[in-house]
């Protein structure tokens, strides 16, 4: 009975967590990852909001559990096709190698918005306009500097880049960028207390536990300055600083300032894999994300029998939410494998 198997596509937070849970129950798991290293988007982060927990630790805890003999990990394997045939779920990689199993779990996750599509913000044009991911990378090294190697005296974070933007077709809120901006601004101020951090927002959405507290702390302790207004133009000055223009909507006046570093809080988009595999199986929902059967109790199953979903391939989620979702998916899969 227990020789039944499941393929999990994507070894990010959701994939690994689900793999561990399923394997603990004695089923065989094939965990497939397109990249060399496991951990998915979690690899990109140094610390997590709202408690500054080490992202590396979360990742290592997840990966360390993977040594169960029931789990086979295939990295550097990009799945291009996923379909149900001969009573088996079959995943085909780019080298045409096939993986077969009784059930499949999509944990293909997200990718960040390509900020170059918002040309007016100058990403990819000016050196000192960076994305939140690049900020994380710098933070990991402990040195946040401008491209010229200077310590930024002023840094600005811009929320909602690629989220809540009809022009790029993303009407939804990515949910994590607000709190991430608060986190990064706080981190920045921890390192450079004498520098000034600004955060430009349309709405501050602090709807998670301890988010509001972190927001408040960033104001009180770190003196992060919050400006309600969207930046709509950025241009480089002669000394490689970035001049930004926004409206200070609460005072009703246009506002311009020069910053050393402009950080674009890029939103969450469905990853290419999510988009591709979901549409192949006709479970593609809005904006390229995969669609579950329903939000209430059916969030991990799909209209396809034996095909399950977990994590950010469905919608933007935080890491604790993803872990919980992966556990829920594992639970559903085990139930399913028991039945067949």
């Amino acid at each position: 009975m227990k020789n039944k198997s499941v393929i999990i596509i994507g070894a990010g937070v959701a994939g690994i967590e689900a793999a561990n849970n399923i394997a603990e129950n004695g089923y065989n798991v094939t965990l497939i990852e397109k990249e060399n290293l496991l951990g998915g988007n979690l690899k990109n982060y140094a610390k997590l909001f709202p408690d500054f927990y080490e992202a590396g630790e979360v990742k290592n805890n997840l990966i360390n559990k993977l040594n169960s003999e029931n789990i086979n990990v295939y990295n550097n394997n990009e799945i291009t096709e996923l379909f149900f045939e001969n009573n088996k779920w079959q995943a085909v990689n780019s080298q045409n190698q096939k993986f077969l199993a009784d059930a499949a779990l999509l944990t293909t996750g997200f990718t960040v918005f390509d900020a170059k599509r918002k040309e007016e913000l100058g990403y990819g044009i000016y050196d000192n306009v960076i994305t939140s991911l690049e900020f994380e990378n710098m933070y990991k090294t402990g040195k946040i500097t401008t491209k010229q190697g200077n310590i930024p005296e002023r840094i600005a974070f811009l929320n909602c880049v690629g989220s809540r933007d009809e022009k790029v077709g993303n009407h939804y809120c990515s949910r994590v960028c607000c709190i991430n901006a608060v986190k990064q601004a706080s981190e920045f101020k921890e390192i450079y207390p004498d520098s000034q951090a600004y955060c430009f927002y349309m709405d501050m959405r602090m709807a998670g536990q301890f988010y509001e507290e972190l927001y408040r702390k960033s104001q009180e302790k770190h003196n992060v300055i919050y400006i309600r207004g969207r930046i709509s133009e950025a241009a480089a000055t002669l000394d490689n600083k970035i001049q930004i223009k926004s409206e200070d909507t609460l005072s009703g006046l246009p506002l311009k300032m020069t910053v050393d570093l402009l950080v674009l809080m890029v939103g969450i988009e469905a990853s290419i894999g999510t988009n591709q595999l979901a549409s192949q199986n006709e479970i593609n929902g809005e904006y390229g994300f995969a669609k579950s059967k329903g939000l209430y109790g059916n969030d991990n199953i799909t209209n396809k029998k034996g095909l399950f979903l977990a994590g950010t391939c469905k919608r933007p989620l935080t890491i604790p939410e993803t872990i919980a979702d992966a556990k829920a998916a594992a639970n559903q899969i085990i139930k399913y494998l028991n039945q067949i």
Partner: protein
Amino acid sequence: MNYNNFIIPFCLGASLLLIIIIYKFAKWLSKLDKKQKYFVKRNFFSKKSIAAINEVFREALIHRNIYRKNPLLGYMHMSLAFGWFLLIVVGKIEASFYAGSFFEEPWLAIFFKFFAREQANFWVANFFSFTMDLLLLIVLSGLALAIIKRLKSKILGIKKATKHVIYDKIALTALWLIFPLRLLAESSTAALVQNGSFLTGGIGELFSLQFAQNVELPLYWAYSSVLFVFFVSLPFSRYMHIPSEVVLIFLRKWGAKAGEQYSGLSDFEINSCSRCGICIDACQLSFSANINNVQSVYFIRDTRYKKLNDNIANNCLMCGRCTEACPVGLELTLIRQQLRTKTEIAGKHYYDYCENKNNKNKTDIIYFAGCMTQLTPNIIIAMKNIFSAAKVKYWFMDEDKGICCGRPMRQQGFVQQSKDLISKNTKLISKSGAKLLICSCPICYKSFKEEYSLDIEIMHHSEYIKMLIDENKIKLNKSELNIVFHDPCELGRGLNIYKPPRQVLSKIGKIIDTEFSEKDSLCCGGSLANTVIELETQLEIRNKALEILTKSKPDILATACPLCKKSFTHAYKGKVMDIAEIVSKFLYLQNNSKKQEIKEKEIFSILK
């Protein structure tokens, strides 16, 4: 005298028609502006009038333009127009011949068969009779096609037929009835006195003598009455285009041009629209967004009947595709712009706050990026690059946010405001002493060229780059890239600049043709001129255009307008680049081989 009471409706209708047309034409001619009147006076007695007659013959009677678009549709128009024209001309000759005088009763030709009962049966009469029957047959065949078109327009190459107003329907019904009734009336006479040829005679033979006697007079009454209805409804229906177009062709040949202001010429143009509906098919709002009630035909119709509303006046991308398609050659975009003009508030100065913009430096060359280009900084950087590579000194006029060129205001009908902006910019430009103005935005470019009266040279950056290449000031690297060039509306159809950008791009890569290019090119949907449609509709238009443009999966989708670039970038995951950006990337740096190497790597990276 050849007289019967039934000629009264015809004579009455014809006189009324004549009076109305003379009154209307006199009114419109008096409304011509000074320049137009000057041309009319100068060229009235010149060869141009003869050319006009030729043109009238070709366009108004033979409908060459429609024929080119669709032969069947052309035949329909030709058979009706030219056939009827010949019926009148030949009928007139026949009647004159019969009466032995050129000044016979004017209605004799129309009801000839009825009055020419005792005509001698010799070859001339037979010839006329035969010719007239033949012509009638041609007209009737055209009529049959017209009926088919009404019922199933696709057969005649028209996807969407115009929806007509009540005047049109009355006139149309009358028009459709004229020739069958004439056929029947003449056939009944032919049955009685045997003066018909193959058609009228042939049908006449089917009539019994008794029947023919009973129906002859009523049929002539009906024929005459239908003529009355048609004549009286003509000036109020779309058939007004018949007389109007004739005058319009003369006016055009004489050199009268439509200006910024609405004039008598515009009146002629508006009335020359035959509501054929070809513009509906050309319109992207129709085929991309399924909006089928705002096109030029409806715009002009509503203007004529004084029913114009904002929804129709402003629901237009002003891309100019309908102007290109119009068989009558009406300048539809210009007319729309003229008519959008709003009532003004006297004595207002709007943009005094721009006064503090000063130019202290004298310069030979001005670069004007334009408002839109401010949001595509890549273009500005590219232009700066090109200028420095060509070692050109220039003044970047709107580096710190300039004054708008005024065209967006003009397009929305705010003439006074537009003039205010134009005078502000003109002052700045003339102070600088420049000899050349380079624009990055085709909208500004068109404005500078047509709405400003600057006596300096004005160029779009694609033309300027072409010039720099020709003068050997910059050199480009050649590559294997496939490039699709999207013609911006204002640059292409607006100013007829199709070649320079292509010549530049062909030095860099291979230009791939698309289904719609040059005159037929599509609007990107980002047009500012439409203030009715919402973003969603604009995106539909953009997506359709993008789909067509990128069918061949080019390496680069090139354009020469910041607005087009912006529209496409948001949706297309491939490369969308302005021509200046591409040139800047492919600049060949002669004296610096190391930099050149880096450059080549960069080019390679574009492909990724």
